[in-house]
């Protein structure tokens, strides 16, 4: 995989810190599964977390906690090894997404939101902010000029598109700031399927409305 577009370092740092939202975290985790360079960045950023733990001012722990831990420990050697998980779902997808989706991408139930544009929302935990969706855009189809009123992060899963930032192919990330405007066009023979996390659902609805505007006149 020849990945050219990566998440912002600030996004990777927030991911490592554990303070990136659930939707954006799944997009970043999926990119990481495909991108060794960004895994290195995240590992560096995790070191920072370790150093901060070392520096925490100790908070006395109740006397019973150690005993409760000790009585819960299993003496059997832990047999678990990394990389032996059987991953449910589509092997063509990055592991974190495949696990979350639980079915091949061919079985996704798409909802048409505009001509040539289909969407499938992924379920988030209660209280999670934002929206996580798969988006499928037909060949030659453009998504008209739109801005983002909240942060939005997109991972290309298959196909490709071009906008003023360049050409985005599988593994590439568009990590767009507030107020960035772009006008993208799918240039692959197959439809372009992306995973999109938007920070605020209301704002994202705004984007969908604007997407649909030229077609439906909403």
């Amino acid at each position: 995989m020849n990945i050219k577009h990566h998440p912002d370092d600030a996004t990777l740092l927030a991911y490592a810190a554990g303070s990136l939202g659930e939707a954006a975290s799944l997009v970043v985790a999926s990119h990481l599964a495909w991108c060794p360079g960004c895994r290195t960045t995240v590992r560096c950023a995790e070191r920072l977390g370790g150093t901060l733990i070392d520096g925490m001012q100790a908070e006395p722990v109740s006397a019973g906690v150690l005993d409760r831990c000790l009585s819960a420990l299993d003496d059997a050697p832990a047999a678990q090894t990394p990389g032996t998980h059987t991953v449910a779902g589509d092997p063509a997808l990055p592991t974190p997404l495949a696990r979350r989706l639980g079915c091949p991408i061919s079985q996704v139930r798409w909802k048409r939101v505009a001509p040539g544009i289909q969407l499938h929302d992924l379920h988030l935990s209660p209280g999670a902010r934002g929206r996580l969706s798969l988006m499928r855009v037909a060949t030659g189809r453009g998504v008209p000029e739109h801005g983002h009123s909240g942060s939005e992060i997109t991972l290309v899963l298959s196909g490709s598109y071009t906008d003023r930032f360049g050409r985005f192919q599988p593994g590439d990330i568009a990590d767009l700031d507030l107020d960035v405007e772009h006008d993208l066009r799918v240039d692959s023979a197959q439809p372009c399927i992306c995973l999109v996390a938007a920070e605020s659902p209301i704002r994202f609805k705004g984007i969908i409305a604007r997407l649909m505007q030229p077609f439906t006149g909403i």
Partner: protein
Amino acid sequence: MNDGQTLTGEELSALVTAVAKSRDRAAFARLFAYFAPRLKAFMMRKGADPATAEDLVQETMIAIWNKAPLYVEGRGAVSTWVFTIARNQRIDRLRRENNHHYADIDDYDQPSDEPGGDEVLMDRQAGDRLREALAELPEEQMEVIRLAYIDDLAQSEIASRLRLPLGTVKSRMRLAYGRLRQKLEVLA
């Protein structure tokens, strides 16, 4: 108990190895004495009440026992590994209802990630250098790091807390990371 005792990176690493190889409970108790009070403080800063913080400490410590055989010495300090376990435990608890586990990079590591592939992360002195680098960080950069890592604020929340544009928060995080990364690369 000797709360808040200090141990060197080598000592911590030897304790985790003893837990992994010989299921050594005394070694576990020493790890507990070092990490449990720090983890409790960490969880409380993130908004957990003392009882919930202790539950999370307990879950994290038990996970340390269970995952000890997976700890890869050359990949990073024990504290870093413990930080990722604590982070994941806490996020998994927040998302428990849906079984949406935090996708840790250890779950899908590639062979190229094994020590040897990543010299930047290997040096034993890296922890000290990182501490120095953190101490030298301008306060405005350290502040966004603390708010993201310890107080668990999203970038947009940091922006509104500090009354700064989101772009400024992001650029401070980027600058801080750049300085720290540079320190780690000097070692490679």
